[in-house]
């Protein structure tokens, strides 16, 4: 009875009610959206690499090394000499290594020079191996294996030929049609940066760089080369080849710390070795402050939304005192009047939460391709997590608690007014 009255009364004040619901919905959407992006990005990052004990690169900050080598964010500042790589790779504790050579792009996708070991040893998610959707791994030095997104976006399939440009970015400095790569295989989707990577052989990469180096007649290419020492090109001997980083799998995980110290103290050149999991925690520490700020801002927006409801309900009270007197005269108890206002607050809050969730899911579904391509964030649109449920319950309880304020006021009014109609 009282709930039906509350709903009818809100319908009578449609405009305010709709605005209130919308503001709560937007606030809830923001709050849950921030939380969803936070947890999804963490999960997405954590699932990017698995089973790798160490990542080794030239001396740099651990976070930087992790970001460019595993997440393809940013660029390497220095390379590792091939002989340094071999020296570490041949140590007894090492089970496998995957050399990585980064810095080039193909139509906006990163190109990664590597070896067949990549397809054998690289693991992501929960110890998942890379699977080929079509074709096979490298067979020839001019073979390329594409990530799932690359194949879909650029329309390549196994057997097609493609041209790799030198330099990172959408626009490349030089293009060579002379030695096109053959698409040897396409990987299954992984939900990691692998999907947006073009994998080529180290030898193929060397060939691209060699051709670029011969572009003496192109002043722009020459100028770029002059200023980009980290991209020195090597054509003569394999031993002069440089890579940007390599992944190490150890025979025993327990050796990781001593191996890390060994790499960091390597005498041949300054190197940095990181434990991916530990460095990821460092990343979260850096990002954590921003996350907390975002969360605080979105929580404040929820408070503002609920405050809007409080204002709307409070301003309606004085004009509703006569309505309350009429209800009292037909037998409504002061508790009924209290419940009427509280019911309105609860109804507005719950409707706002429901609408906010619906909007969030629509937004996630609509924004997913953009998040993937622009931020490399792979969002799984699933059921709300327990934490998100808890957030929603907190908002709902806060809405009802805020509803207590106008409800209590009208309760006091109706006790004082009785059936006296006050205008």
């Amino acid at each position, binding site marked *: 009875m009282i709930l039906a009255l509350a709903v*009818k009364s809100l319908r009578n004040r449609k405009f305010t009610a709709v605005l209130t619901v919308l503001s709560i919905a937007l606030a809830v959407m923001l709050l849950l959206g921030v939380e969803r992006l936070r947890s999804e990005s963490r999960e997405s990052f954590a699932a990017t690499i698995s089973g790798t004990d160490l990542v080794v690169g030239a001396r740099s900050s651990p976070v930087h090394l992790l970001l460019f080598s595993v997440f393809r964010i940013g660029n390497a500042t220095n390379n590792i000499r091939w002989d340094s790589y071999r020296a570490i790779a041949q140590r007894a504790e090492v089970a496998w290594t995957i050399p990585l050579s980064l810095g080039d792009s193909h139509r906006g996708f990163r190109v990664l020079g590597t070896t067949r070991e990549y397809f054998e040893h690289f693991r992501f998610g929960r110890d998942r191996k890379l699977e080929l959707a079509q074709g096979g791994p490298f067979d020839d030095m001019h073979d390329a294996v594409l990530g799932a997104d690359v194949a879909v976006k650029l329309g390549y399939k196994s057997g097609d030929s493609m041209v790799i440009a030198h330099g990172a970015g959408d626009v490349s400095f030089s293009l060579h049609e002379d030695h096109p790569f053959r698409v040897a295989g396409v990987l299954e989707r992984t939900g990691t940066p692998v999907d947006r990577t073009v994998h080529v052989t180290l030898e193929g990469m060397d060939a691209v760089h060699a051709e670029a180096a011969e572009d003496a007649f192109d002043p722009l290419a020459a100028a770029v080369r002059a200023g980009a020492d980290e991209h020195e090109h090597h054509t003569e001997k394999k031993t002069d080849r440089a890579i940007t980083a390599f992944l190490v799998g150890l025979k025993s995980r327990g050796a990781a710390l001593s191996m890390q110290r060994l790499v960091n103290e390597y005498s041949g050149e300054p190197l940095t070795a990181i434990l991916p999991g530990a460095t990821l925690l460092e990343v979260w520490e850096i990002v954590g402050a921003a996350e907390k700020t975002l969360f605080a801002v979105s929580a404040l927006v929820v408070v503002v939304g609920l405050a809007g409801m409080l204002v709307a309900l409070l301003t309606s009270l004085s004009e509703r005192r006569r309505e309350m007197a009429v209800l009292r005269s037909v037998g409504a108890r002061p508790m009924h009047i209290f419940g009427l206002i509280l019911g309105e607050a609860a109804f507005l809050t719950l409707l706002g939460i429901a609408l906010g969730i619906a909007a969030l899911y629509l937004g996630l579904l609509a924004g997913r391709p953009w998040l993937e391509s622009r931020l490399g964030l792979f969002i799984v649109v699933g059921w709300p997590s327990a934490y998100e449920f808890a957030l929603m319950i907190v908002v709902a309880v806060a809405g009802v608690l805020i509803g207590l304020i106008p409800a209590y006021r009208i309760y006091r009014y109706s006790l004082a007014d009785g059936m006296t109609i006050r205008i």
Partner: protein
Amino acid sequence: MDVSAPATSQTLPPQRSGGSPEAVVELSGVRFSWSGAPPFVIDIGSLRVARGERVFLRGPSGSGKSTLLSLLAGVITPMEGTIRVLGQNIGALGGAARDRFRADHIGFIFQMLNLIPYLSVVENVCLPCGFSPRRKERADREGGTAQAEAVRLLEHLDMGDAAVLRRPVTELSVGQQQRVAAARALIGAPELVIADEPTSSLDADRRAAFLDLLFRECAREQAALIFVSHDASLAPLFDRAIQFADINRATGPAPALV
């Protein structure tokens, strides 16, 4: 139509002890002040209204009439004395029981703004049935459903036109609104109808027509009517007219409500 048989209440059987059986309202030695201490606003030695009686209560505004009505309704309780409605000493009931008693046995019509703006005409009339199962049951018995009974009452009050029923209550004229309020006060056959200056916002012609309809329906439902007004010209239309100052010995100031 025979509705003269004493109604049997399922919820709160009126207690007959101590009151005369045919009295709907019986006050003795009632004193009340808003501050909780003398001077009193209300000091009534005795007042009795019989079943089906139409009583005109006249007095200037601020003389405590509204306070008396709040006492009769059980919204407030007297500091001294007893108020019996249908034999029930309502001062002895708890707050919830008084609200329930009011819903079951008393219909109200106010001076103006009687209606809930967001409810339809019929929903407004049926409102007491939502708070009183007893009145809902009586309305159901009378009209088949409470809604049908509401329409029947509205028809009796010349408000049965389907076009009028569909209009938002805020678009009704004041006279129409008062008739909707009268139908609401009468639905489910409460034993007592209290009208607080219900005609003061009506012009003379409409006032007479409204009173005519109200009397007819009160008589049909065998409801006692306590009609409060400062307009002495209406007094001859009633069974009995009471000058409020004659029964109220209070010399206290006008009620200064919170």
